[in-house]
């Protein structure tokens, strides 16, 4: 068995790769933040503006874009073609523009396309900038809360002492209540968060290294995916952030599989158990990747397209974080524990 040998010889070395990826991702995000002021690019659903669809074939994208740029100099404008994948028919255009509203842009578009825009050929979504900001805040809150709750659930499953589980539950709840009330608005509250997080992390490390490995793996999935998304200058929508929450769910599946197989099974060597989990885990991830790729190619909705893209990227990262990092940490932990 070659793979078992690979794991028994290299389980420490392979952990280097995910850690390098994590560090590069953090650097990339910081660079992006220092050049643009944001960690990710938000689309109009999170920053305010309009997104519109005109269902008229044969429109000239470049002409529309340059005319819009001229008439709305303050707006950030993007225009895309909408084509039917199966028939290749030109259905119309999708455009997004910040710092404007429906009442302003509709007459301009009517003038450019020289058509009256009605409900039969025109859809428009308008997002107030204050609501966009609230949405963004909430989605961040939702992701952080999901993380905290999930970490606790993982600890419940793989942790040991009931008393620590209860204490950590209370700390997690306090953290979330503060987060929903005060968000990240001032430095004092951030210090409180950091103290609470250190307390949580300390007990997790002390009591259950496997839980920490699972949480780290989820962190890597999210951070690396964020870095790739910002590297490609993708503009993230509300649905895109919801996709990150789906990623958390998918990412944890394989980690729990691996942890259960390694720690709770007795048959075979630890390497054989790891490779057994690897086979199952790869089948899981590959079926999901294949299904998502098919869906991504054929969907005509930009909302779904973005969600699928984000999950696809994250699943590929998850292969590294689960089978190199999480497996490495678990084998190392198991050996140390058994020697003791």
């Amino acid at each position, binding site marked *: 068995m070659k793979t078992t040998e690979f794991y028994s010889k290299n389980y420490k070395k392979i952990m280097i790769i995910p850690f390098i990826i994590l560090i590069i991702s953090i650097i990339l995000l910081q660079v992006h933040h220092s050049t643009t002021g944001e960690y990710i690019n938000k689309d109009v659903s999170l920053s305010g503006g309009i997104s519109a669809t005109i269902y008229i074939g044969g429109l000239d994208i470049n002409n529309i874009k340059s005319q819009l740029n001229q008439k709305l100099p303050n707006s950030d404008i993007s225009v895309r073609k909408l084509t039917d994948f199966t028939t290749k028919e030109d259905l119309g255009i999708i455009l997004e523009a910040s710092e404007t509203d429906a009442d302003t842009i509709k007459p301009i578009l009517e003038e450019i396309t020289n058509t009256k825009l009605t*409900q039969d050929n025109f859809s428009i979504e308008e997002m*107030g900038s204050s609501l966009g900001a609230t949405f963004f805040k*909430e989605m961040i809150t939702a992701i952080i809360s999901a993380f905290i709750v999930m970490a606790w659930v993982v600890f419940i499953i793989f942790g040991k002492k009931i008393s620590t589980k209860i204490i950590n539950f209370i700390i997690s709840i306090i953290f979330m209540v503060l987060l929903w009330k005060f968000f990240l608005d001032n430095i004092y509250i951030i210090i409180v968060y950091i103290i609470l997080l250190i307390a949580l992390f300390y007990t997790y490390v002390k009591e259950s290294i496997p839980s920490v490995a699972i949480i780290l793996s989820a962190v890597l999935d999210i951070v690396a995916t964020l870095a790739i998304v910002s590297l490609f200058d993708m503009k993230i929508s509300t649905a895109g952030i*919801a996709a990150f929450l789906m990623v958390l769910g998918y990412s944890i599946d394989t980690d729990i599989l691996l942890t259960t197989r390694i720690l709770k099974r007795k048959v075979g060597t630890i390497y054989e158990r790891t490779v057994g989990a690897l086979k199952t885990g790869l089948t899981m991830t590959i079926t999901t990747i294949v299904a998502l790729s098919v869906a991504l190619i054929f969907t005509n909705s930009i909302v779904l397209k973005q969600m699928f893209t984000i999950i696809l990227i994250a699943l590929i990262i998850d292969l590294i974080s689960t089978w190199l990092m999480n497996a490495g940490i678990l084998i190392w932990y198991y050996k140390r524990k058994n020697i003791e």
Partner: protein
Amino acid sequence: MNKAKKIIKKWRVILLLLFLLFSFMAINPQFDAKGVSIRNIETNSAAAFAGMQNPPEGVSETSREIIKNINGNEIDDLSDYADVISNIKEDEKLTIQTNKGEYIFLKQNETGITVGKVATSNIKKGLELEGGTRVLLQPVNKITDDEHEDIIAVMRQRLSAYGLSDVNVKKANDLLGNRYILVEIAGATKQEVKDIVASQGKFEAKIGDTVVFIGGKEDITRVCRDDGTCSGVRSCSETKEGYVCTFEFQITLSERAAKKHAETTKDLEVNLSGSGKEYLSKSLDLYLDDIKVDTLQISADLKGREITDILISGPGSGTTEQEGVQNAVKQMNKLQTVLISGSLPTKLEIVKMDSISPTLGSQFVNNAFTIGLLAVIAVAIVIFVRYRNIKIALPMLGIGISEVVIIIGFAALIKYNLDLAAIAGIIAAVGTGVDDQIVIIDEVLSEKEQYYRLDQKIKRAFFIIMAAYATTFAAMMPLLKAGAGLLTGFALVTIAGITIGVFITRPAFASIIEVLLEE
């Protein structure tokens, strides 16, 4: 053959079949959907007097009353209905046959019936899939729970008074404690909707500084509308900029408001106007949201009297006479609407407004079906390549499809709109389902652990499945409330989907595999 019998006898499989049957009943697909369904019957219309009834609130799509035949003409769809109705002359007899009865009345200018397409199932499609208008409003000031309820009630009344059917007004809160009002109007809607939902609608009629009456049921018992004898556009005149038209409609004041009028006017002086008519020294000024819309002179013989019938008037202008009339009608409608529904407890601000064309909606639905089918086939191929066993690939396919049916059945049952986010949620749930089934198969097939019994292996698989379920469930919880309820569909469908999965479909799958792989 024997194995099929054995599978059917497993209680987990029976449970799955029961749920499938139940979902099928909840979705209630209609294969013979002819006619047009009744969406709304206007009160006091000829149709209402003939005994036609407004569909009860919360009626499921497939139990709406359906018009099948008018005056002997078969009605198959909306265009048939429009043709037949427009060909019937004024004051001609209308015989409407529905699936619930027969109604006969004379056609007046409007029938008072609003119709829609017959639903082919109880699945409610969201705005992105059906087209329509969505307005998200936020109160300018902090409001209490009661005020939130009040706003919803007034908004509902206002929209129905304005003549819109198929309206959904919902309360929405978010994680950060903000309150919103979500208004969704299916189908094509006019531009004025924005005006109707966003204005506070504070109507005041003042004499001097004294408020005599305000909008709402307390002071105004009846507002005349849709009746040419007491409401309509009365006159137009040409001005420098174009045309100004005047509308008029009658309202009836409550006793309390009438007394107030008597009290306020009894001490006023009588003046003689240029035309020789006698008027009171102060006029009745009408304000809408603190802006004066009109001033009515009070004739001298009304001094100190408890009058109940008042004629409200106001202007509408346009560059052509036709435009002037149209604007006057719009203004009149708006004023009538707020007089009926009264004012909102606070000002509202439109924070999001979407207007979605129905055109692409059906394409989205077909597309979602196509990609769903292709994804399922792709998964089946991967599974077959990995296990080389049709006994594994087929049940997996079957279970995946059952899961979709049960999730959609659940959505139909709780009357939840399926939108794009919900479709993403279904995909997520079924994706996790496939993952879990792979865990089950691999546990069952693991040769190394021969000395474990099959049911013990399945039990062990379920430890992993339940742990993964608990974490995904936890991850989705905060999303239930985030984003002013716009992502609730996604979170709800995902949570429902994975829950149905771990408690119903996966146990059934385990039972099927157990029987199929038995030696």
